[in-house]
């Protein structure tokens, strides 16, 4: 685990391990306390690794898009952050949409097992509507957690898909 940790977090992983040694040496705390401590630390290290990976990916995206970090604190300026947030949201929504699109035949077969024939409405109600609801729900949650940019990014493909369905139904 130590070797997988980002270099700037190695001291913290060492710190957690040393603390674990101390809990292990001290008989009164017990093995269960040491086990739960180790599990908690493993989760924390894993999240830090993911956070490091996310930061690296964002940096690469920013480099690709030509968004420069602001001078102070080596952090991206707010416009750059918002742009990346919106693009991340669009990417997540599109990826989720593609997954649901690939699963459409599996869902149709499952519905067929329940006696629901494949039709335009079954496709809309079993694939498009749940996808839209999940994306909108995720956007509301993100909005509440002050991630408005990502939420807007999620809503853009959802709105386009919704408009596409409305136009399709209206044209029929």
């Amino acid at each position, binding site marked *: 685990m130590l070797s997988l940790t980002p270099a700037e977090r190695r001291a*913290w992983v060492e710190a957690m391990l040393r*603390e674990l040694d101390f809990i292990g040496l001290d008989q009164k705390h017990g093995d269960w306390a040491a086990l739960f401590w180790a599990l908690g630390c493993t989760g*924390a290290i894993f*999240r*830090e690794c993911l956070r490091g990976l996310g930061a690296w990916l964002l940096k690469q995206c920013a480099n690709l898009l030509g968004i420069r970090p602001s001078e102070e604190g080596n952090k991206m300026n707010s416009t750059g952050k918002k742009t990346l947030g919106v693009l991340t949201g669009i990417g997540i929504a599109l990826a989720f949409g593609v997954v649901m699109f690939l699963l459409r035949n599996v869902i149709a077969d499952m519905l067929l097992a329940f006696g629901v024939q494949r039709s335009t409405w079954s496709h809309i109600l079993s694939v498009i509507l749940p996808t839209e609801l999940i994306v909108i729900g995720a956007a509301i949650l993100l909005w509440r957690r002050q991630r408005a940019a990502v939420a807007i990014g999620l809503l853009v493909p959802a709105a386009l898909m919704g408009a596409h369905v409305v136009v399709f139904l209206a044209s029929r």
Partner: protein
Amino acid sequence: MKLKLSPQTLLILEAFLDHPADWKYGYDLSRSTGLKSGTLYPILMRLADRKLLETAWETSGPDNLGKPPRHMYRFTPEGMQFAREQRQSRAASSVGSPVLNEAQNLWGLG
């Protein structure tokens, strides 16, 4: 200073404020705040990243001869000031609550 002050972060700040000059260990903080290691360490990392906490490795002395050194934490002067300001602002914001509760009881709104 922009820092997400979750209830867990506030617990840790309070734990450090009890004896601000003393070094504290991770497991002791976990026991005093009731936070699990998976919650405690990410918060300690953020506080240290923002220079609110300073960290050090325990030096070996006669008491801990042969034991592995432990990581210790305590407030930086900025951290102490930040925690005190947070405590004051929370105390100020909660001053109105008893009065509000009393008024609600009087008007039968409670």
